[in-house]
């Protein structure tokens, strides 16, 4: 009887471990960023931002066509039992210097609820690169004191169609 008790306790510990994995893995604050450039929408999942915090820190690269605005959508998913209040800020950087603020808002997310924010990076704010050369900008998103990864690097390029080939002068 006594030996079975030890076995049951060991099984209870194992069940507790699995329960923690499921429950604790599910709860927390989750960030999802959607970026729309041209006709394409790219989704950066919460897994990506969480991996950044656990050591694999590298920026997210995205290509965009010069002269077109870049739209951002940011979801905060509060999977906790309490309301989560914070300030969300988005800014655009070039060569480690802040160029402009894109978005700033205080948000309050109820328990097990989600909030969505949207902003646009206007094309006029960015320089048009010389054809064949990509210009890079960094869009940084901050949720309270937490910065999402190392930012999103926006690689701007001028489409090939806009390059005019000038024939050499005859004669």
């Amino acid at each position, binding site marked *: 009887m*006594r*030996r079975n008790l*030890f*076995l049951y*306790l*060991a099984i209870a*510990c*194992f069940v*507790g*471990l699995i329960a*923690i*994995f499921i429950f*604790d*893995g599910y*709860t*927390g604050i989750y960030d999802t960023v959607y970026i729309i450039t041209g006709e394409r929408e790219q989704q950066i999942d919460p897994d990506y931002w*969480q*991996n950044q915090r*656990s050591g694999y820190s590298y920026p997210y690269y995205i290509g965009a066509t010069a002269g077109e605005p870049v739209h951002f959508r940011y979801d905060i998913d509060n999977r906790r039992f309490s309301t989560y209040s914070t300030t969300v800020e988005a800014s655009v950087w070039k060569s480690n210097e802040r160029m402009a603020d894109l978005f700033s808002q205080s948000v309050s997310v109820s328990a097990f609820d989600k909030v969505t924010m949207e902003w646009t990076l206007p094309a006029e704010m960015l320089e048009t690169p010389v054809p064949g050369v990509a210009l890079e900008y960094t869009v940084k998103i901050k949720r309270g004191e937490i910065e999402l990864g190392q930012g999103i690097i926006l690689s701007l390029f001028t489409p090939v169609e806009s390059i005019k080939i000038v024939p050499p002068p005859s004669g």
Partner: protein
Amino acid sequence: MRIYILYGFGIVLCIAGVSYLAAEYIRYLSELGKLACLILTVGMFGFLGKFFQEIGW
């Protein structure tokens, strides 16, 4: 004899699979969750050890 080799192979695969999943999932746990997991793991192996001791292994 062959059946024991297969058993051993199966056990090793199970342990490897569970270890891989644990290593993947632990990254998403909070500090408190990690601590609770550590305590429960120690408890589990401790109780298993006592169980095997009781049955005379």
